[in-house]
């Protein structure tokens, strides 16, 4: 099977049934358009996803294999078998997984199916950042100075790095999404950075080839959406600004960019089209640039897939990009020679299962509740629902939420309000953090760059401790829940004819254990004591999901959701997870001093110590790989390694005992 030349797509190909070779929100999003276009739909799933919402959205769903992506969503043969078994005649790859895998696109074509995306040749060409850069240079598009040579020896890379100059960006040639990427600010950091980047690149992509490039300080990330058909039409659909990033991953994206003048916008649009034309691009693609504070821009790379942030383009252009991809794949002409004008302003946030208070570490668990208030102008693309298991196998993005409004300020306000009033429980998310970003004066002023989150980190931390409110809410809620039970359902819960002391409940809030006292005064009045602060409040209303109370002057409402571990109590833009401590502690569960447990589920990739060897406080005992990151597990006390219950390659569960360091003085 030979590669088709990009412009030689000869015939109109009918598409009757689309298999979406993906999961989560993007699978759901693609399926939605397929359904609107009257197409048959096939979902695929791994064993972890049998009950995922995307499975139920399709006409039929095919099992791929076990949870690990390499056995399911990355298994090309299994996906093709699923297509054959279900009679699908086209495959949409979504984003991530196989979406930029030329071999996959090739295999799809070889199986006689339509790949909804660019040609394998283009994917392959643009998959190499070095090749892409060469094409851009040829097309007259500016690029960042750098090294993308074949000599990948550490000595060569070190030499080239000095030539390009610092600060310097080290990244995987085959990569994307920030994996294997390192900023090196001075020559001393170079060696370890190269080492780690190579390891991560090899681990993530099976290719440790690195690219070096000059690092532009305070850059904005602006990208141009391009769309080409098989009839020679290639247009840009304006820009998206994606400068709000953490760990080089986009968190908030918007269109239009508040930074561009009409002239810059036109210039960058033309540059995007030029890159597309240089490779004969068809279908939807994204040409990424960085924009320096002085307004100059540099080509970064081309993503040969639908982007996570495509909805902001859809909102402002009125186009459905998946529909356009399918039309292009069917061989239809775009039917327009230029982008529709941008209307209004759209902002997207990526709602992640991650903990902003702990270095954005991915979080896992079962979603106990996933409620986002619906408003005109708000779009929610989600692949999860209450009951969804958020595991370690896949990307921790739960949903993208997009607000579209006449102005940027209105869009930001609407989106922030939506997030503030969302109730998501069971898994820690960046919901409130996103809302605070959207409310931050610098964001509102459009003063964005890719270091925004680092620079404003402290201001984005909620200054208010909501623990007490959460504890009052849960106390009242539980009191109301206790009504109606037992032999005398209408006797006041906790009734006493002889009052001895408060009824007490102990809660674990983060690392703190807090005892809360309450005295039911009857008539829905209750005295609640948290620490040395006591207040008499009145319950206004309570149901299974929320409680409203008043202190006599103001009323407060909190959403209460039982989770796997305890409860989540959420108010506007805050949420506190509470674990009710058992009244009768399980003594066997108490851990000895020096016990080291896995902070999250993962795999042991390195063991640095041996049993019966002394270690200092902070010494790395072993390294876990979890959510594609390396987490060192360090000794909490100085002492002797006495029990090491895991070995390299072991899969460990959260809170699993890994090792015990017996303190020296014990």
């Amino acid at each position, binding site marked *: 099977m030979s590669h088709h030349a990009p412009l030689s797509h000869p015939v109109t190909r009918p598409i009757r049934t689309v298999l979406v070779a993906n999961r989560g929100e993007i699978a759901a999003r693609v399926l939605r358009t397929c359904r609107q276009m009257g197409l048959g739909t096939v979902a695929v799933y791994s064993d972890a996803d049998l009950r995922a919402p995307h499975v139920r959205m399709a006409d039929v769903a095919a099992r791929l294999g076990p949870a690990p992506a390499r056995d399911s969503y990355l298994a090309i043969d299994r996906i093709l078998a699923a297509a054959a078994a279900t009679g699908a005649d086209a495959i949409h790859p979504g984003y991530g997984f196989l979406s930029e895998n030329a071999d996959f696109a090739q295999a799809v074509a070889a199986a006689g199916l339509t790949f909804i995306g660019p040609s394998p040749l283009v994917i392959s060409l643009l998959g190499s950042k070095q090749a892409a850069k060469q094409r851009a240079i040829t097309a007259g598009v500016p690029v960042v100075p750098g090294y993308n040579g074949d000599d990948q020896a550490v000595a060569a890379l070190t030499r080239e790095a000095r030539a390009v100059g610092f600060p310097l960006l080290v990244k995987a040639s085959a990569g994307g999404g920030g994996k294997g990427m390192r900023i090196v600010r001075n020559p001393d950091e170079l060696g370890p950075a190269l080492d780690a980047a190579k390891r991560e690149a090899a681990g993530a992509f099976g290719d440790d080839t690195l690219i070096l490039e000059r690092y532009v300080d305070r850059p904005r990330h602006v990208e141009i959406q391009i769309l080409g058909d098989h009839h020679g039409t290639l247009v840009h659909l304006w820009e998206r600004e994606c400068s709000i990033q953490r760990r080089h991953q986009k968190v908030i994206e918007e269109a239009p960019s508040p930074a561009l003048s009409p002239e810059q916008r036109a210039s960058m649009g033309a540059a995007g089209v030029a890159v597309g034309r240089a490779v004969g691009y068809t279908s939807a693609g994204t040409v990424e640039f960085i924009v320096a504070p002085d307004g100059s821009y540099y080509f970064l790379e081309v993503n040969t897939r639908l982007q996570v942030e495509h909805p902001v383009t859809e909102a402002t252009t009125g186009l459905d990009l998946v529909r356009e991809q399918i039309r292009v794949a069917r061989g239809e002409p775009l039917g327009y020679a230029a982008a529709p004008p941008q209307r209004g302003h759209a902002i997207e946030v990526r709602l992640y299962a991650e903990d902003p208070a702990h270095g954005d570490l991915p979080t896992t668990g079962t979603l106990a509740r996933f409620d986002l208030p619906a408003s005109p102008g708000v779009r929610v693309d989600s692949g999860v629902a209450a009951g969804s298991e958020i595991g370690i196998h896949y990307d921790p993005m739960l949903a993208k939420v997009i607000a579209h409004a006449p102005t940027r300020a209105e869009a930001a306000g609407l989106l922030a309000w939506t997030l503030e009033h969302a109730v998501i429980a069971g898994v820690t998310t960046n919901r409130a953090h996103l809302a605070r970003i959207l409310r931050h004066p610098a964001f509102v002023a459009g003063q964005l760059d890719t270091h925004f989150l680092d620079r404003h980190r402290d201001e984005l931390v909620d200054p208010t401790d909501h623990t007490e409110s959460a504890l009052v809410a849960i106390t009242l809620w*539980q*009191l109301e829940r*206790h009504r109606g*039970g*037992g*032999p*005398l*359902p*209408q*006797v*006041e*819960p*906790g*009734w*006493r*004819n*002889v*009052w*001895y*002391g408060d*009824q*007490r*409940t102990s809660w674990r809030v983060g690392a703190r254990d807090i005892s809360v006292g309450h005295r039911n005064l009857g008539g829905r009045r209750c005295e609640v004591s948290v620490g040395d602060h006591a207040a008499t409040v009145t319950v206004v209303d309570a149901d299974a999901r929320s409680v409203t109370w008043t202190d006599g002057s103001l009323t407060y409402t909190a959403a209460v959701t039982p989770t796997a571990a305890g409860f989540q109590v959420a108010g506007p833009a805050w949420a506190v997870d509470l674990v009710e401590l058992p*009244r*009768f*502690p399980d*003594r066997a569960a108490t851990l000895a001093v020096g016990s080291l447990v896995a902070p999250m589920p993962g795999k042991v990739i390195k063991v640095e110590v041996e049993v019966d060897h002394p270690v200092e406080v902070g010494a790395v005992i072993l390294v876990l790989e979890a959510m594609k990151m390396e987490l060192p597990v360090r000794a909490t006390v100085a002492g002797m390694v006495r029990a090491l219950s895991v070995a390299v390659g072991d899969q460990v569960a959260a809170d699993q005992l890994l090792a015990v360091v017996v303190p020296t003085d014990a």
Partner: protein
Amino acid sequence: MAEHPYPIVRSQVDTKRDDFQTNHAAGAAAVAKLAAALHGATVGGGPKYNERHTAKGKLLPRERLELLLDRGSYFLELCPLAGKDVPGHAPGASLIGGIGLVSGVECVVTASEATVKGGAMSELSVVKSQRLSDIAEQNRLPAISLIESAGADLPNQSKIFVPGGRAFRDLTRRSAARIPTICLVFGSSTAGGAYIPGMSDYVVMVKDQAQVYLAGPPLVKMATGEETGHEELGGAEMHARISGVSDYLAADEHDALRLGREIVAHLDWRKAATPRPRPIEPPRYDADELLGIVPVDAKTPYDAREVIARVVDGSRFSEFKPLYGSTLVCGWAHVHGFPVGILANNGILFSESANKGAQFIELCNQADVPLLFLQNITGFMVGKKYEQEGIIKHGAKLINAVANSTVPAITIMTGASFGAGNYAMSGRAYAPRFLFSWPSHRIAVMGGKQLAGVLDIIQREAAAKRGEPVDEQKLQFGKAMVEAQIDKESDPYFATARLWDDGIIDPRDTRTVVAISLSAAYSAPVGGTTSWGVFRH
């Protein structure tokens, strides 16, 4: 909701009237005094002994109780002021007891007040313990005892030893009656006390704390010369692993309480009776108004229906014979869904009211409806007319009916309780399942003033017979002494300290207390009788 057949009591109370306000102020003061007295009974041995106890890592007895109960459970503490101001006794008589839910089951729960004389039992502790035992037996409630007791208060052993033996007999007889007994031993439970775990169905002992033996090391050495230590003689480990006296070994106090809850859970306990399910309406009038309804002076009459309206479901009351014997209000109502037949005094008892009451009790027995007595009685009417119409035989009918009734009875002493009226209205001697008092309660064979007046007449008559002048000063002094003594002895605190009731309650809690009592009573079969003593007609 279906139309309710019982009419609503129309309250005539005007909360703005001066007399209401005056009564309310006095009632509120009485309730505050009660709360203070009750709180005073919860402090155990006081800060010094409590700290000495907790310093050993032990939970206070009330903390143990709170942990044993279900979260959100009610707890009706019984006889909390037993022994109060009685020489040689601590408030509560060194024992805490009441009814609450453990693993969803209504249980009688008792705990030794270990911070008072090491939990030693006084004479009144024995009386209280027996009262709690009776409540468990009569209402078929599983009992859980949290034991940490030095045993009998030895200086007073003469008052304790002989009656105290009943406790062990009661335990095993309840066991035979299939009412489970559970004993959690937190500390010392020695000599006779060792038979509390010994006779209980289930025994849990706390490791390193429980000491259960017939004789401690010093006594053993004296008796046989054997030298031995506490643990090997009666420690929890020994009893759990070697003697088998303990069925479970608790790692600590929390573990013992957890085990107690676990044991109750596996009893698979079912109440013997349940009322017909019906919607439960709260009363239409505020219970707080009870404080203003009851007059400051027990002699001032008030309408018992005003009390009924603030206790029963929906303030609905189906009155029986409203036009006959009006000084005894009788009728049917519900309390938290439980049916009750209420007998409430609305003045002195006449022949007609006694007859009406007797008939009403027969009707409630015929229908298996429990009785609720709202007692406020200065006695039966006296005088030639009434004696001649046979008030004795009519009163006797009421007493006959009360005494032979087999449906559960609950008595609330709201005001006066004088003379035979106490008996006719199911006083303590008539063994109601539960009997509670309001702070406004006064109890005696007759009022202090009346008794002093009687004394005055008798002494004057005697003086006249002897032909001597009356020593007015001596007579007045004697009268004052008698009146003061009667007033002191008819005080509700005097009464409750001697276990003449199951506790003084805040009148506003009456509905809840009656409900908990009724629910407890429904744990045993509820059945009336048709078998009575001979009625003299």
